[in-house]
């Protein structure tokens, strides 16, 4: 275990755009991460171990649904606060951030936006505190980028629904108390159902063999004639737009999270370059190393500006899905490129678990694929500017 020496870099004095409360939230999250997560994260990653004991702590720092109103156990915070929390978590590990993103944006968000009052009261406070964990089932074995083609479906059986089908690649699923499952009704319209752990015919086996997001648990959701009570259907919205609106919220968080991963790689590379001596000089004195470092801080700064502006637009209710796609795509690519360059600056040390770089790099391979792949987001921008969809 190496000590977490992370220092944040703020090249364009972005902190001046933040409130004192934003900074307090960020500092508290950063201190918590350094104290509770940094010392164990390499080990969790190596052993493919999900650090379940951290869930209450994540709840305490407000990482679960910070923008959910206080009456439901949230903190009623703005979108910048949510972004800063995701940044601090992913600064440590994308898996840690994934757990919090899924819980906040893909589980609590749909229950808050589309759930009944009873559903909100039953689920949100326990999810906010980390007592319960939730997951989001959209992707299926044969439907990833094209979720609208899903085959999971439910039938009305009088006083309950009967759900059949399977979901795959579901973050948090094996240990979740509740799954927000997207499935088609008899007319083919998509609805959200709250499927609870222990319902007969419902299983969530863990998926193994990931080389990425190893500190986050991923599994399937299998529904074999599951009887779902009618009060577990999300009444507020149906159609593909419902799950997509949740993805907007999660992708926005990922855009911030990716900056965290990039900041960690840059900070580590900058320090290493100043300390590592070759040819009797710190390697930071060589132009090729400086080019890498200069480009990294430039890209991070651009991403910070993009994301802060997007946060403001979201707070004003004006951010479009396409704008969010642009930020997710740009920032994740930025982070993965910085991870690769930072890896090179660290030389051989960069491939070891002494440094977080290789872990970030492997993690970001998932982040660039989930919540809409890199190319799909490009097509969304393409459609937005031309008015012509090029998906199918």
């Amino acid at each position, binding site marked *: 275990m190496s000590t977490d020496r992370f*220092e944040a870099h703020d090249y364009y004095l972005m902190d001046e755009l933040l409130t*004192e409360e934003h*900074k307090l*939230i960020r500092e*508290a999250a950063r201190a918590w991460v350094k104290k509770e997560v940094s010392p164990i994260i390499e080990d969790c990653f190596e052993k493919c171990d999900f650090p379940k004991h951290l869930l209450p702590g994540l709840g*305490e720092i*407000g990482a679960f649904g910070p923008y959910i109103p*206080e009456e439901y156990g949230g*903190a009623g915070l703005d979108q910048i606060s949510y972004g800063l929390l995701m940044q601090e978590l992913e600064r440590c590990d994308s898996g840690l951030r994934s757990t919090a993103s899924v819980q906040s944006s893909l589980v609590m968000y749909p229950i808050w936006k589309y759930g009944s009052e009873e559903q909100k009261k039953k689920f949100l406070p326990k999810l906010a505190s980390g007592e319960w964990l939730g997951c989001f089932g959209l992707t299926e074995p044969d439907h990833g980028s094209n979720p609208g083609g899903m085959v999971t479906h439910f039938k009305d059986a009088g006083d309950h629904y009967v759900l059949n089908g399977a979901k795959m690649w579901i973050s948090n699923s094996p240990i979740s108390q509740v799954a927000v499952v997207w499935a088609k009704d008899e007319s083919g319209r998509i609805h959200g159902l709250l499927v609870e752990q222990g319902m007969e015919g419902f299983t969530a086996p863990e998926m193994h063999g990931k080389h990425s997001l190893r500190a986050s648990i991923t599994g399937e959701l299998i529904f074999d004639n599951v009887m779902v009570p009618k009060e577990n259907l999300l009444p507020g919205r149906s159609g593909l737009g419902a799950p997509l609106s949740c993805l907007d919220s999660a992708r926005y968080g990922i855009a911030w999270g990716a900056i965290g991963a990039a900041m960690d790689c840059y900070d580590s590379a900058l320090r290493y370059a100043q300390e590592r001596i070759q040819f009797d000089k710190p390697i930071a004195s060589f132009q090729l190393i400086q080019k890498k470092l200069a480009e990294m801080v430039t890209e991070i700064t651009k991403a910070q500006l993009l994301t802060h502006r997007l946060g403001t637009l979201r707070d004003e209710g004006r951010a479009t899905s396409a704008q969010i796609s642009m930020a997710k795509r740009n920032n994740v690519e930025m982070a993965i490129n910085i991870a690769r360059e930072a890896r090179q600056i660290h030389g051989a040390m960069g491939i070891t678990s002494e440094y977080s770089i290789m872990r970030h790099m492997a993690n970001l391979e998932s982040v660039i694929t989930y919540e809409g792949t890199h190319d799909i987001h490009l097509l969304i921008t393409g459609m937005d500017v031309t008015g012509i969809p090029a998906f199918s």
Partner: protein
Amino acid sequence: MKLLVCISKAPDTTAKIAFTDGNTKFDENGVQFIVNPYDEWYALVRALELTEANGGTVTTITVGTNSDDPTIRKALAIGATDAVRIDAVPKDAYYVANQIASYAKIHGYDIVMTGKETINYNGAQVGAMIAEILDQPFVSLATKLDLQENTATLERDVSGGVEIVEVSTPFVLSAAKGMSEQRIPNMRGIMAARTKPLQVIEPVASEELTSVVSYSMPDSKAACKYVDAENAEELIHLLHTEAKVI
């Protein structure tokens, strides 16, 4: 139980240090401030532990301007009941101690707690001066504090061992490393801090007994020189002629 904890801000340990006004003032421009760690980690957190166990209130007090408010809010987020800021630029230790003691005299506290020093000025004088002005006992550099009714038992690190001190309330202490552990504010605390009272009051008239003539930076660190383990002669020569320590 009524506890008063003195809170001051200190530059973040990564801050770049510079001076202004002809090297008589620390340049606060662009500097990130934190709660002075000795005030926060040891004095404040121990005060909270005591009131959580036995009931009571923890008030923080700061002599400073509104640029201190973020650090005061953090203390409230960690759990203090309320806060007082005496609206004045802290000039010297006596000035600060006089302000705090004047307030404490009126409101009456069982224990007034300070950190052992601030990490920027390292004066370590305020606590003792408050005690003197209040005419109360003072225990400096306490590493442990327990309370039974009105009797406090404190530990202090002394050369080669530990000194155990007993004192009756009311008294003043300065807290050193070991008294408690860092407490990270949680989201509930941060939200509660929004509405906790932060009372701003005018300073009492007070003189300052000292003034700063100038600050200067320490010499920048020279590069390390490596001497072969076999070559003791060269090491002695360098220690004698270059480092001038032998």
